[in-house]
């Protein structure tokens, strides 16, 4: 379950999307995580060359266009590679050992993240995973909501 929280981040209130002059939601990392707190995994697509950027960026690094549009990813993909972290940073000590991996999403872009399976024995390259969201027990400038991967 995701609880809407009101942690102050760099751009201000977590729940207030920052917008450009035209009133569109800006393609920033913070807004990506604001979408996560609404349980939406979002990327931006370049309107000129159709490259998908995940994480979102303010302009297209392929064709240098600034016309980028947010869209919702299906949140489904296949595991490209993984590791099980046994010696974690302090924030993750309570959940260690935990699995992390890089997932190739159906839209063709990759995303890293924590992987949670009912039976970790099923952790293998090539397995199908879906995105879900959770609230972390620690804060950062990106708020507390994170996406993670689990079995469909």
């Amino acid at each position, binding site marked *: 379950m995701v609880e809407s929280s009101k942690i102050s981040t760099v751009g201000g209130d977590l729940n207030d999307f920052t917008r450009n002059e035209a009133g569109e939601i800006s393609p920033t990392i913070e807004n990506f995580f604001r979408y996560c707190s609404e349980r939406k995994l979002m990327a931006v697509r370049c309107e000129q060359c159709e490259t998908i950027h995940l994480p979102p960026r303010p302009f297209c690094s392929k064709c240098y266009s600034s016309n980028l549009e947010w869209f919702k990813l299906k949140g489904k993909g296949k595991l490209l590679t993984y*590791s099980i972290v046994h*010696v974690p940073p*302090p924030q993750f000590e309570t959940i260690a050992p935990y699995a992390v991996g890089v997932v190739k999403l159906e839209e063709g872009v*990759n995303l*890293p993240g924590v992987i949670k399976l009912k039976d970790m024995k099923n952790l293998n390259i090539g397995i199908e995973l879906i995105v879900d969201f959770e609230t972390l027990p620690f804060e950062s400038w990106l708020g507390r909501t994170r996406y993670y991967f689990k079995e469909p």
Partner: protein
Amino acid sequence: MLMNKVALIGAGMTRFHHSLHKDKSSRELFVEAFLECLDSVDKSISHKDIDALFISATASEFFEHQSHIACLLSDWTGLNPIPATRIEAACASSSAALEIGVFAIASGMYDIVLVGGVEKMTTLEVDEMTYALMSGLDHPYECILGVSNPGLYAMMANAYFEKYDSSWEELTSISIKNHHNASMNPKAHFQSEIMDIAKKISQKKGLKFDNEMDFLKSPTNPYIAHPLRLFDCSPVSDGASAILLASSKKAKKFTDTPVYVTGLGHTSGTMSLHDRRDLTSIPASVEAGNRAYKMAKIESKDIDFAMVHDCFTPAEIIATEDLGFFPRGEGGKAAIEGRTRINGEKSINTDGGLKAKGHPIAATGTAMSYEVWKQLRGEADKRQVNNAEIGLIHNVGASGGTAIVQIFRR
């Protein structure tokens, strides 16, 4: 192209170690490396000959709450009022500093420049140190998701195993070789073969290991980030290294056997691992290698020996493929066959590598060129590569956001 040729005229480093330097902070460590560097100049050099300092410390803000460290080190080495600048590129910091030092001389601005790096790491506990070093990763997309540095190289290893049908056993050839090389290096953190360490532990704990593999597969070698175990990871070490650079015109005044910088390759790649098409190669390394070979007008086959960035064992295998020493998928097999040992087909990490020599982050790049300096001057003792003419260093920032390749000649 460089307007003027640049040479190494001196090199110094502290031993890399986790407990030996307990009483020293960054400044004392760097002074120690600097004094050895001064002493190494054949025809002697004075402080007053040095025109500028480019120095690296990767995360001194975390380890010692100390930024603005360049002028501090200039002061402590007695070099004030020369200009001192800090250069940061994660684990590739001091090779970046060496590169800037070369540019500063090649431009004609300076004749003699001191470059180097220092890292005092043991002030933090392992978990805090892990988090400090994760500042070199993409914060929102790796760090805060719990993806650690070993985790990234572990993911590369698993992708490599899958693609080339290899396994963790292949990695052990790297740690065994690098421990062997480090056993002959008085500057190395670990100066013992893995089997000697296994024997010591077995005596202390009443265990028995039949051979290296028996030890490496045991719980005594615990997982850090699966499939990587403790002996797949470079240790936490304190240390410093320093190199004196001179214009080729001035170099002869200080030594009859300078070492010349002939190739420089420095490239940036995506900071995030997930942003790469192929997770079994570091594209920035490939490109940095190509640029350095092109500038030196040589090919990978011409390299006699190389120090490559083996922060974790899979990194050495991937590096030897990225640099063109071995075909894709064959780097691990080459190591198993002994082709990368000292005076093998390609001597790799003659100093013990990051794995066994140690990896005080910002000190690593110029410690690699320290070993190249020793080898090219025939001063590497038991580690000496026969007829060493051309040496290469390969230094990677974190998981490949930065890659630096430098080529040196006698």
